[in-house]
C-alpha cells in the first residue's frame, strides 16, 4: 500500500492533465467528475495507507516509511523520496479530504463559468502540488511543491483575470511570496552547505551534531522568512486579503485550509532544527502572536464578508505559529486540522451567501438571511461558535491547547498567552459581528435581490463540514490525547512541548478562554443585534478612529507604499482618503517599480552606438586586467 504512495499524487495530476486537454470538450458538469473522483480516491488511498498508524502499539521507527521513487538530483542528495509518517498522513488527509468536499462544492459555485474545465485543472494541479509539498522527504522536493502551490495560487487568484483587481492581486501574491521564497532558497543553500545533503532523513536526524546553535538560528530564521511569506505572517501577510479576488472555493481551499498552512507544516517538520535555537522559536512565536492580534483587530472593522475571513485566517495562522514556536507541534497541527475544517466551512458558507446575493460581498447590504438560507445559516453558526472557542466544538479544543501550551512555557511566553487570549476575545467578537450582520436582524439588501438557498451540491459539503466541525475536536481532548499519541512517532527525538497535565490548571485556562469567547460574542450581540440603529451608530461613533484604522488594515499597504514610493506622492495618498484599493500598489509594486526604474536608468548604456559598446568592452577589459594583475602580483 505505502509502496505505491505516489498514486496519491498521480491521481489529481492525472485529472489535471485530463481536464487540461479534454476539459473543454467534455463540457461543464462532466469535467468535474474526474476531478472530484481523483481527489476522493487520493483521500481513500491515503486513509488506507495510514491504517497502520492507528495501531498504537507499534514501535515508532516502523511507523515512519520512506518511499524511494527514483534518483532525482544525485549530487544534492536529493532523491525523489516520499516520507510517510503520521504528520504527512494528517496533512494528506486534510488536503484531500477538505479538497474533495470543496471540489464538490465548486461544481455548484462555478456553474456557468466559461472556463469551468480550466478551473478544475488548476484546482487538481494545486492538490497534486500540495501533496508533493507535504509528502516530500527532502528540502528540494519540498521546494518543488512550495513553488508549485505558489504558482497554482497565482493562477487561481487571477482566475477571473479580466478584472484588473484580480490580476493585480495575483501579481501581489506572487511577488510577496517570492520575497519569502528568497529566504527559503538561502536557507536551502545554507543547509546544503552545512549538511552536504538536502534529505530530511540526514538533516533532521540529530542536527545538533553537525551545526551549532548560531548556524541553526540562521537557518531557522531564513526558513521562517519563507514560512511567513507562504503563511501570510507579519510582515508579509499583505497578499492574503487581496487574494480574496479569486473564486470562493479557491479561498476556502488554498487561502484558508491548505496552502497557507504550509509554513506551519514546514516549521513543524523542521522541528529538530528549531529545537536547536531558542531565538528562532521565540521569533516564530512572537511573529505569530503579533500577527494574530493585529489581524484580529483589522478583521473587527471589515465590511467585506470575505475580507473578514481573510484576516481571520491570518490571525488563526498566527495562533499556529505561536504553538510551533514554543515546540507545541501537536497543538499547532491540531489547530491546523480543526481550522482547515471550520475555516473551509466558513468560506464555503460565505460563498453560498455571495452566490445567493448575486455577487454582493458587503455585509452592510445583507442581514436577515437566517430564514432565507436555513442550511447555510445553521452550518455557519456552528463554524462561528467553533472559531469563537465555544465548547465542545472543534475550535475550542485546539485553541485551548495552544493557549495551554503557551502558558506552560511560562516566562516571556505568558505575555504571548495574554495576546492570544485577547485575540480569542476579538475573534469571538468579529465572528459574531459577521454572523449578526449577515444572518440576524432585518434585511438590508437592495431592490431586486432575491436571496435563496444554494443548490444541494453546495449545501451537502457544508453539512458534512458542519458535522466534522462538531466532532473533530474530540480526537484530542485533555481527557483523551489520541491525536498526540498518533503524531508521536513523527516527533521522535524532537523536544515536543506538551500541554500541562494539571487538571485544575487546565480547567481554569479553559474557563478563561471560554469566558473570553463568550464575552466577545456578548458584546457583538449587544452592539449588532440587541441595540437599536441609533444606539449602534452612537456607540460606534465613539470608537470611530480606531475602527477606521482597523478598517484600512492599519494602512499597511499605504505605509509599505510610502516607504518605497516617493514620499510626496505617498503623503498625497495618505491625506486623499485612505482608499485601500487606490494604494494597492504598496510594497509590492513599489519594489517592482524601483527595480524597473533601476533597469530604466541603465538602459542608456545600450545606446545603439557601436563605439560606445566598444568603449564599454574596452573599459571592462582594462578593469579586468587591472584586477587580475593586482590579485596575482
Amino acid at each position, binding site marked *: 500500500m505505502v509502496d505505491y504512495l505516489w498514486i496519491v499524487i498521480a491521481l489529481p495530476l492525472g485529472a489535471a492533465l485530463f481536464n487540461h486537454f479534454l476539459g473543454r470538450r467534455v463540457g461543464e458538469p462532466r469535467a468535474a467528475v474526474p476531478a472530484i473522483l481523483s481527489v476522493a480516491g487520493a483521500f481513500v488511498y491515503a486513509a488506507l495507507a495510514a491504517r497502520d498508524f492507528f495501531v498504537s502499539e507499534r514501535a515508532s521507527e516502523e511507523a515512519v516509511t520512506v518511499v524511494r521513487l527514483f534518483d532525482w538530483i544525485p549530487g544534492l542528495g536529493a532523491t525523489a523520496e516520499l516520507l510517510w509518517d503520521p504528520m504527512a498522513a494528517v496533512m494528506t488527509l486534510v488536503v484531500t479530504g477538505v479538497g474533495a468536499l470543496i471540489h464538490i462544492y465548486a461544481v455548484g459555485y462555478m456553474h456557468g463559468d466559461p472556463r469551468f474545465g480550466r478551473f478544475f485543472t488548476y484546482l487538481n494541479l494545486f492538490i497534486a502540488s500540495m501533496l508533493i509539498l507535504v509528502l516530500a522527504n527532502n528540502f528540494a522536493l519540498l521546494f518543488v511543491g512550495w513553488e508549485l502551490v505558489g504558482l497554482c495560487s497565482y493562477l487561481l487568484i487571477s482566475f477571473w483575470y479580466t478584472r484588473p483587481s484580480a490580476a493585480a492581486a495575483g501579481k501581489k501574491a506572487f511577488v510577496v511570496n517570492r520575497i519569502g521564497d528568497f529566504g527559503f532558497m538561502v536557507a536551502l543553500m545554507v543547509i546544503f552547505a552545512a549538511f552536504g545533503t538536502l534529505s530530511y532523513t540526514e538533516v533532521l536526524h540529530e542536527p545538533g551534531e553537525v551545526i551549532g546553535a548560531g548556524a541553526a538560528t540562521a537557518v531557522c530564521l531564513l526558513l521562517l522568512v519563507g514560512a511567513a511569506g507562504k503563511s501570510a505572517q507579519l510582515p508579509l501577510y499583505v497578499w492574503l486579503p487581496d487574494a480574496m479576488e479569486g473564486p470562493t472555493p479557491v479561498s476556502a481551499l488554498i487561502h484558508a485550509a491548505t496552502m497557507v498552512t504550509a509554513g506551519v507544516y514546514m516549521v513543524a517538520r523542521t522541528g529538530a532544527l528549531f529545537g536547536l535555537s531558542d531565538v528562532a522559536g521565540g521569533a516564530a512565536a512572537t511573529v505569530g502572536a503579533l500577527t494574530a492580534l493585529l489581524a484580529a483587530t483589522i478583521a473587527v472593522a471589515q465590511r467585506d464578508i470575505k475580507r473578514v475571513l481573510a484576516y481571520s485566517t491570518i490571525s488563526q495562522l498566527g495562533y499556529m505559529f505561536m504553538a510551533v514556536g514554543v515546540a507545541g507541534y501537536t497543538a499547532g497541527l491540531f489547530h491546523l486540522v480543526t481550522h482547515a475544517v471550520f475555516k473551509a466551512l466558513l468560506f464555503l458558507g460565505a460563498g453560498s451567501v455571495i452566490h445567493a446575493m448575486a455577487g454582493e460581498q458587503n455585509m452592510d447590504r445583507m442581514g436577515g438571511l437566517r430564514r432565507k438560507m436555513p442550511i447555510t445559516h445553521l452550518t455557519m453558526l456552528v463554524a462561528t461558535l467553533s472559531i469563537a472557542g465555544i465548547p465542545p466544538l472543534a475550535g475550542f479544543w485546539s485553541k485551548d491547547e495552544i493557549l495551554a501550551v503557551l502558558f506552560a512555557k511560562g516566562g516571556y511566553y505568558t505575555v504571548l498567552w495574554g495576546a492570544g487570549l485577547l485575540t480569542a476575545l476579538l475573534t469571538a467578537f468579529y465572528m459574531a459581528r459577521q454572523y449578526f450582520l449577515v444572518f440576524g436582524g432585518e434585511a438590508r439588501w437592495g431592490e431586486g435581490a432575491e436571496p435563496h438557498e444554494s443548490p444541494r451540491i453546495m449545501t451537502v459539503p457544508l453539512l458534512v463540514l458542519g458535522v466534522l466541525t462538531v466532532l473533530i475536536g474530540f480526537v484530542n481532548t485533555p481527557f483523551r490525547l489520541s491525536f498526540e499519541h498518533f503524531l508521536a512517532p513523527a516527533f521522535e527525538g524532537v523536544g515536543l512541548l506538551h500541554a500541562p497535565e494539571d487538571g485544575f490548571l487546565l480547567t481554569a485556562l479553559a474557563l478563561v478562554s471560554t469566558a473570553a469567547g463568550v464575552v466577545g460574542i456578548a458584546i457583538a450581540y449587544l452592539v449588532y443585534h440587541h441595540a437599536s440603529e441609533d444606539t449602534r451608530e452612537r456607540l460606534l461613533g465613539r470608537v470611530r478612529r480606531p475602527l477606521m484604522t482597523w478598517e484600512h488594515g492599519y494602512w499597511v499597504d499605504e505605509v509599505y507604499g510610502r516607504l518605497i514610493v516617493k514620499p510626496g506622492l505617498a503623503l498625497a495618498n495618505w491625506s486623499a482618503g485612505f482608499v485601500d484599493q487606490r494604494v494597492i500598489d504598496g510594497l509590492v509594486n513599489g519594489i517592482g517599480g524601483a527595480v524597473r526604474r533601476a533597469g530604466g536608468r541603465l538602459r542608456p548604456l545600450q545606446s545603439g552606438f557601436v563605439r560606445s559598446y566598444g*568603449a564599454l568592452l*574596452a*573599459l571592462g*577589459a*582594462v578593469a579586468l*586586467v*587591472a584586477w587580475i*594583475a593586482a590579485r596575482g*602580483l
Partner: protein
Amino acid sequence: MELSDYLPIAVMFILASAFAGVSLVVSYLISYKRPTPEKLEPYECGIVTEAEPIQRFPVKFYLVAILFVIFDVEIVFLFAWASVFGELGWGGVAAVTVFTLMIVETLGYVWKRGALDWNVSRRARYRAAPPAEAAQEMAA
C-alpha cells in the same frame, strides 16, 4: 632581463587605456553637442560639399581584390608545410592535398557563381532563372 618582467608594460597598458577611457568619458560629459550637417561632414572646411570626396569604384574591383587576398593568403600555409615537408611524409602530403582541394572547391564555387566574370553578361544569365532576386544579388 626576465621574460616575465613586464610590469612596466602592464602599467603602461592600464595607464594608456585609462587615459583614453577617461578622456572619452570626460569629453562626452563636458562637450557641447550641437551637430549640424556641416559639422558632421568628413572634411569641414566651410564650403558645402557637393559630391562624395572620393570617386567610388564599381563593386567588381572589390570582389576581385577580396578573392585575390583570400587565395593569396591561404597559400601561406604551403610555405609552412614546405619547410617541414620531409618530416611530415605522406601524411603531410595528404593533409595538404585536402587543403588544396578545399581551396580549389572555393575557386570552383565563386567561378561558377560568376564572381570572376568581369563581363556582367554571364552573371546575368546565371541569375536569369529567378529574376526577382537580381537586385539582392549585387555583392554576392
